[in-house]
């Protein structure tokens, strides 16, 4: 019977086929592995689960992971918007090169990025050498994690905002100017609302990517328990200690927390889109 409901006459061909493939694909790639993870963790039972998870070290790792990811996502939202703006609105020598540079964090193995950043920001590195006398320690602190996550998440905001900025007619800005709006007013009241949905998407992607990031972080973080240890690393540590149940428990909690956050952001996005009339 459900088949009948789904099968509405439509000009677009292949609805049944493509939806079938989509569901099978998503199940195979996302749902089944995640369900296996949850099932594995369920073997612990409720009390075993909470015992494995509610330890100070695990909670601290969660705080570090979510805190640094959020910070990196926000930094990328601000500066990624700026980069996208410059790339869309101005022509300058080297425009193409800058445009290509933006994608580099996607292509680079994250471990390479981690090693490079650590070398730069360590006390004896170029940047670290300048910052440390000022009392600012970056490498081997949560600050270093933020730096690594910002690097990794940069392309997301730029690449989601860029096309939307391109579509935004210059006429809207001209209209605002003729109506008496200053530059800041034009940005805050005309441009920002128009690109907000795209900016939120970019932020979400950068944030989600940062939550799962492992390779670049472990080099620069220093991995001090309670201070600069991230959740993915903690899971690896548990695995190395053959504590599979503990690892899956932490993984499941991570999964739930990430899913809840992403869902919330998605709803927020939907709300802004509806409010702004698409």
């Amino acid at each position, binding site marked *: 019977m459900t088949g009948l409901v789904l099968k509405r006459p439509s000009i677009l061909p292949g609805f049944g086929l493509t939806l079938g493939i989509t569901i099978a694909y998503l199940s195979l790639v996302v749902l089944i592995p995640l369900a296996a993870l949850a099932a594995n963790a369920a073997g612990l039972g409720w009390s075993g689960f909470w015992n494995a998870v509610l330890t100070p070290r695990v909670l601290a790792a969660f705080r570090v992971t979510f805190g640094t990811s959020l910070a990196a996502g926000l930094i990328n939202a601000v500066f990624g918007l700026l980069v996208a703006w410059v790339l869309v609105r101005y022509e300058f020598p080297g425009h193409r090169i800058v445009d290509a540079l933006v994608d580099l964090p996607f292509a680079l193995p994250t471990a390479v990025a981690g090693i490079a950043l650590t070398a730069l920001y360590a006390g004896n590195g170029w940047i670290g050498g300048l910052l440390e006398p000022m009392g600012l320690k970056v490498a081997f602190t949560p600050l270093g994690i933020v730096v690594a996550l910002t690097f990794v998440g940069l392309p997301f905001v730029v690449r989601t905002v860029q096309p939307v900025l391109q579509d935004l*007619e210059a006429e809207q800005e001209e209209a605002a100017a003729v*109506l*008496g*709006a200053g530059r800041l007013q034009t940005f805050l009241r005309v441009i920002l609302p128009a690109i907000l949905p795209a900016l939120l998407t970019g932020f979400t992607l950068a944030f989600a990517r940062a939550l799962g990031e492992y390779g670049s972080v472990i080099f620069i973080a220093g991995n001090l328990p309670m201070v600069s240890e991230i959740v993915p690393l903690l899971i690896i540590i548990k695995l190395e200690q053959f504590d599979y149940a503990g690892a899956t428990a932490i993984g499941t909690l991570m999964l739930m927390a990430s899913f809840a956050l992403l869902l919330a952001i998605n709803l927020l996005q939907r709300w802004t889109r509806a*409010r702004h009339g698409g």
Partner: protein
Amino acid sequence: MTIDIQGISKRFGTYAALQDINLRVGAGELVALLGPSGSGKTTLLRIIAGLETADSGTVLFEGEETLNRHPRDRRVGFVFQHYALFRHMTVFNNVAFGLQVRPRGQRPPKAEIAERVHRLLKLVQLDWLADRYPNQLSGGQRQRVALARALAIEPRVLLLDEPFGALDAKVRKELRRWLRHLHEEMGITSVFVTHDQEEALELADRVVVMSQGRIEQVGTPGTVYRTPSTGFVYEFLGDVNRVECRVESGQVLLEAGGTPLGGAADHAGPAILYVRPHDIELLPPDERLGAATVRLVHEVGPVTRAEVEYAGTLFEVVLPEGGRVPAQGELVRLSIRRGMLFPRERDPGEPPRPFLPFRSGGPTPAVNLGPHTAGMG
């Protein structure tokens, strides 16, 4: 408020968009900048608004230099061709925008803003749509919102860039009439850009015909239509036959020869004759005067047009309503009642020569036109 445009020039790279434009728009006047695309009309409008800078020349508002002022300080209402409404704002907020962004000291209180916005929306007959978003409106409604938004800042000058260009024919006509009324009511000095001659002639107090960055002619709609000062204006305003000809001893002849079409004073040599299709009459053929052949007859709504070939030249003719419609291939005689002659080589600014029609359609005394005459009248 008067607008004085003095010696404005503008280049885009090597392309001269505007060349030494001088124009004065009187207080409360409604002026149309009319021209084909690329004639510089929109560039001129944008320079008046301050959205574009001029390479040289000045623009004075009420005698006061304005070019160095930022557009936001000019108090100009600008209506864009594609509306440029703020998509994420309701109609109300679009219209209120110009008031809301004012510095705190000059900003009217909230209640007053609301009242003014509603008054403007009533003026454009869209009060009931205040809470909608622009993409929920039709094209004509959007354009009226754009107009209300422009009027909200109480502009000293209203500038409209192809205001009806993106609308369909029926809505365009309605809005045109409505805008004319609005202008009469409010009396704001207004300039609008259009490539539609009908729109310019119907709406404007004065029409500025532009071509290739220059002003071809300025005048009331009647003047530019009836006495175009250049061939370009003749061609741009309404349908016209452009006939290559030469003048010999006061007679206008086609290049291929044939009987003279009419007479001309003080000119000899090659010239171009402009004749409107409805200024040509078809008469029964006369062997002594040479015959023309009807090549094509087609009806377009109320008018019937014919293409008539005479000595290798095609003439477009509008047949009088209710008259006899000739058949394809029929032999007829052309009689040109009115036209204008532009000598091939003439100094800019030199006036065209009037075309002198032969009184009854031929150089010889009136001929007996035979039984067809009554029908062709």
